[in-house]
């Protein structure tokens, strides 16, 4: 009898993620879903729809816009929020810079990833969010392998690796003192492949930059960066037209393209399966140091 009642691994991961989302909706007063327009947050939105069906998603989607995004991502973001009938809140890094709470990096391809932290914490403060869903996965990077589903943050948004609560069974402890909040990662246990296979199985829409297209790119230290107003060419660097796609949708300044002909989800999956480098390997900002991720996380990036 038991064997016919067997959930496949992806169904188990889905059930786990839905369970986590419902815990958050029940345990917190003002949750929000951090939406980047990337594939992981697209999966989160789908899971949220499933978790509360036939009700609407009972929390807003929040986008911290660096204004260095691919235009395709922004178009997609607005389209998806509209389609699922969710409230969309957008806050911009540029506003933090204008307020003087954030300062633009100097250099050739200034990254706004670090500044995103500041704007995010300001947004959390503004709306008094007490739990923010993120699409981070433990398989992405070493520092994340120990992350909890419910990740406790201090009043300053900081993460203390030494002071995380043990998580047992599926009992999630969301108790907190005034001012503290949580980041919650429902797809912690998913791998990149799981995410792609889920997108294919659920037939989810994703931004066009994930698929092959012609684009002018410059090769900088092995990373193919898209032509944009935010990049200054140096020396004998030049833009070249290439057939590329992106594996993540970060900022144009630091998200490297890969040469690819993958035009359909099936082809993307095939490519992911044979991939020789992790998806974060195409992001210039991670390479800065082995412990870069951990440092940014301590400041509240995730």
């Amino acid at each position: 009898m038991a064997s016919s009642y067997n959930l496949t691994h992806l169904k188990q991961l889905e059930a786990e993620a839905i369970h986590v989302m419902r815990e958050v909706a029940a345990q917190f007063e003002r949750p929000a879903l951090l939406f980047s327009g990337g594939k992981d947050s697209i999966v989160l939105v789908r899971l949220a729809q499933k978790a509360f069906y036939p009700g609407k998603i009972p929390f807003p989607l929040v986008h911290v816009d660096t204004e260095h995004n691919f235009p395709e991502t922004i178009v997609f973001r607005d389209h998806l929020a509209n389609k699922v009938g969710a409230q969309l809140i957008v806050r911009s890094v540029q506003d933090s810079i204008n307020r003087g709470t954030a300062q633009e990096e100097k250099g050739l391809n200034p990254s706004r990833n670090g500044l995103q932290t500041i704007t995010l914490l300001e947004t959390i403060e503004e709306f008094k969010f007490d739990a923010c869903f993120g699409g981070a996965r433990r398989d992405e990077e070493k520092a994340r392998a120990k992350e909890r589903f419910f990740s406790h943050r201090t009043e300053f948004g900081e993460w203390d690796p030494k002071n995380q609560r043990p998580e047992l069974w599926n009992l999630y402890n969301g108790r907190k003192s005034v001012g503290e909040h949580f980041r919650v990662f429902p797809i912690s246990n998913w791998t990149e492949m799981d995410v792609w296979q889920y997108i294919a199985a659920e037939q989810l829409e994703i931004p066009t930059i994930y698929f092959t297209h012609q684009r002018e790119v410059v090769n900088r230290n092995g990373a193919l960066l898209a032509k944009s107003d935010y990049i200054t060419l140096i020396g004998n660097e030049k833009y070249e037209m290439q057939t590329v796609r992106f594996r993540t949708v970060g900022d144009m300044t630091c998200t490297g393209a890969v040469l690819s002909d993958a035009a359909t989800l099936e082809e993307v999956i095939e490519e992911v399966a044979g991939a020789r480098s992790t998806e974060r390997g195409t992001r210039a900002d991670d390479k800065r140091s082995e412990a870069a991720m951990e440092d940014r996380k301590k400041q509240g990036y995730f």
Partner: protein
Amino acid sequence: MSEINNIDTKTYLDMDLLRFTTAGSVDDGKSTLIGRLLYDSKSIFQDQLDAIEEASQRKGKEYVDLSLLTDGLRAEREQGITIDVAYRYFATPKRKFIVADTPGHIQYTRNMVTGASTANLTIILVDARHGVIEQTMRHSFIASLLQIKHVVVCINKMDLVDYSEEVFNKIKADYEAFSSKLDIPDIQFIPISALNGDNVVDKSENMDWYKGASLLYTLENVHIASDLNYVDARFPVQYVIRPHSTEYHDYRGYAGRVEGGVFKVGDEVVVHPSGFTSKIKSIDTITGPLEEAFPPMSVSITLENDIDISRGDMLSKPLNQPQTSQDIELMICWLNEKKLNPSAKYYIKHTTKEARCMVKDVRYKVDINTLHKLEDQKEIGLNDIARILIRTTTPLYFDSYKRNRATGSVILIDEFTNETVAAGMII
């Protein structure tokens, strides 16, 4: 082994899931073993491999140190030890694996309990040169306490004992002598060399005398489908869905996760604590209604009658109801630096219910090396395992942990720091 990289979507969607932990004392080769599994299952990407090759060279090692793959936070890197539970992922065409990598230090019972709480299986590493030691027993006891049904004892570093069958047999016999006192239904023994890969993925040519399967084959084929409870129907209500839309005007969906048994449309159910009964009208999902739901599905259930049900309530069947009481006997593992305070109150979380409780009695503390019950020891601190009696502010609806891990487990939370201070298993 066929590679995960060549599998098609259909196969991928059919894979099932095995969660396991690894336990062993420092230097038994846990990190090397996990590194090897990740490496041989092609779950390591080129850039990760480049990074550890570079780091290995920097540290002056003559071979690629696979253990660096699973090394987490910086503080740990600096101290060269693993100090928390880290999760790793790999897959073969048969299964996806989630590994809770837990460190072996004496002071980290807490981490092993945490990792074990969600595991189907535990790998216990034994250094072939040292044999069964105190920590082996401790780890096995925790596996049994947490009701892990499958234990694989990997006798590692066989290359350092000339791949000797005698050494293997001696360790196996020693282990069996003490594990007979434990409650572990399925124990297997595999002689391996994590460093060289013997019997990890493929059968080793160095150990003809070993007739069993390789570790990976064992992990791929261990039968876990019947580990969940499909008998006692239990549905803790997590969240009530009320859309307040014209289309779903009076809709009330009880959202939650099936934690035991099978619920079918038309089944009669009883609601705890109210005791009202009703019938299941529908089991709804965004992609259409279901006829039945079983563990560990997350679903939304509607009932024929309009009764008042909220988070923390539980649905079961009239002829098979959970136990209920305010006085509950628990085995606990204490997880916090701050000792158990017998005069304090704690929050208690059980399924989706939260209450408060106080500790009425510490029955005994367990010496986890000898398994003796220390009845005169009442002080419970970090990493201690003890049996206690608690009294809750409201009755809980529960099963014994042995019968159902989900409805038999609790956590205790400090009222002031909000930290999770104990993991409890209902007796």
